[in-house]
């Protein structure tokens, strides 16, 4: 009897050990990581606890909106779907969007704005990925291709995207686009393609990355730089930051807050 008990104990303990081993493997991302002592960040890196953005719509003009969307598309090799050859009939319905212009009614559909101020009727709104504090796309992603960084940026690892589009269904802001065809078909007018940022390929989803590649080298996002002060970027987790001061001094709204996603993009109206 004693022997059987001991055997069961050992067997149980080993089974537990084995199961945690395999669970550990299942969560490992990629086979190969470079050891921590062989890597570092650039000295100029900008680091934060929660990156956020304030868009002052009072300062937005059609020219600024054009400059902002243009620089983003150019620097991230976002295709122009009008250049796609096929299928012609739904060209208009196909768009790859990182940051784009939207009307108030569409950006804030849940605000019952029956008699909207004339000023807002005429203002172009800029919308982009909200880099949510509680991002539904991350929960929907079956491969952990979309993940939330410690600094709040909701980033895509394009290498892991299998194109299932669960994230698109999960995102309440329409901030994600799917590449139904090779996006390079929409880059044929850009020679050379910007080699500093890879294009995407057919079958992956894409979205705004808050210019993670710029922060890594100590630069502000492209849209902020060309916005003539209409867009402020900063660490909303740091109570002494310029952006927090702005939030203190101005009344701001966010898109669809009632859903509980915690958007990090604020609008001054």
């Amino acid at each position, binding site marked *: 009897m004693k022997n059987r008990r001991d055997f069961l104990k050992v067997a149980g303990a080993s089974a537990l050990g084995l199961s945690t081993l395999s669970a550990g493997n299942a969560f490992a991302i990629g086979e*190969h990581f470079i050891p921590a002592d062989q890597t570092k960040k650039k000295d100029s890196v900008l680091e934060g606890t929660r990156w956020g953005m304030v868009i002052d719509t009072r300062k937005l003009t059609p020219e600024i909106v054009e400059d902002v969307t243009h620089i983003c598309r150019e620097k991230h090799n976002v295709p122009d779907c009008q250049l796609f050859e096929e299928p012609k009939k739904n060209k208009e319905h196909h768009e790859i969007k990182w940051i784009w212009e939207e009307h108030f009614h569409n950006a804030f559909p849940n605000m019952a704005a029956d008699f909207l101020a004339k000023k807002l009727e005429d203002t172009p709104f800029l919308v982009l990925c909200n880099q949510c504090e509680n991002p539904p796309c991350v929960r929907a992603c079956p491969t952990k291709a979309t993940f939330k960084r410690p600094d709040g940026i909701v980033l895509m690892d394009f290498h892991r995207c299998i194109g299932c589009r669960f994230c698109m269904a999960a995102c309440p802001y329409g901030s994600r686009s799917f590449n139904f065809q090779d996006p390079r078909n929409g880059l044929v007018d850009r020679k050379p393609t910007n080699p500093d940022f890879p294009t995407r390929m057919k079958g992956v989803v894409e979205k705004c990355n808050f210019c993670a590649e710029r922060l890594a080298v100590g630069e502000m996002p492209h849209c902020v730089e060309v916005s003539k002060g209409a867009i402020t970027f900063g660490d909303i987790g740091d109570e002494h930051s310029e952006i927090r001061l702005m939030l203190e001094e101005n009344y701001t709204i966010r898109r669809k807050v009632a859903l509980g996603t915690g958007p990090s993009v604020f609008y001054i109206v």
Partner: protein
Amino acid sequence: MNDKIKIIAGLAIFVLIFTCPFWINGGKAKDVPKPVLSEKALAAKTCVLPKDEMAKNHMQLLDGWRNSVVRNEQRVYIIKDANGIEKEYDMSLSNTCLACHTNKAEFCDKCHEYASVNPYCWDCHVDPNVKEASL
């Protein structure tokens, strides 16, 4: 009941057809390609890791690089070279590997063609040395 000749002839034809790839190639294996080093690589003299290690493990290194950059936010690779001097590399496929190996077609592609590997990296990553085409 004597089909000996037919059987032997059949077997002979079978063996001939089965081994025809060898006859067509004259019994020689295809030459192992010599990857051509670009001027820049020649000037630099050394790769990120020793040559043997690069030839064997460059895919693992690249995998490590992309995981470190995209998932760990680390963009600089630190490695001691053969003389014990610490060197730093920006972990970038297009802007480090291809900035030194400026001749992708004669270097990477030549080897890969021979080994019949077709890395899909170039569906997204841009060869900075190809200036006029959009690919």
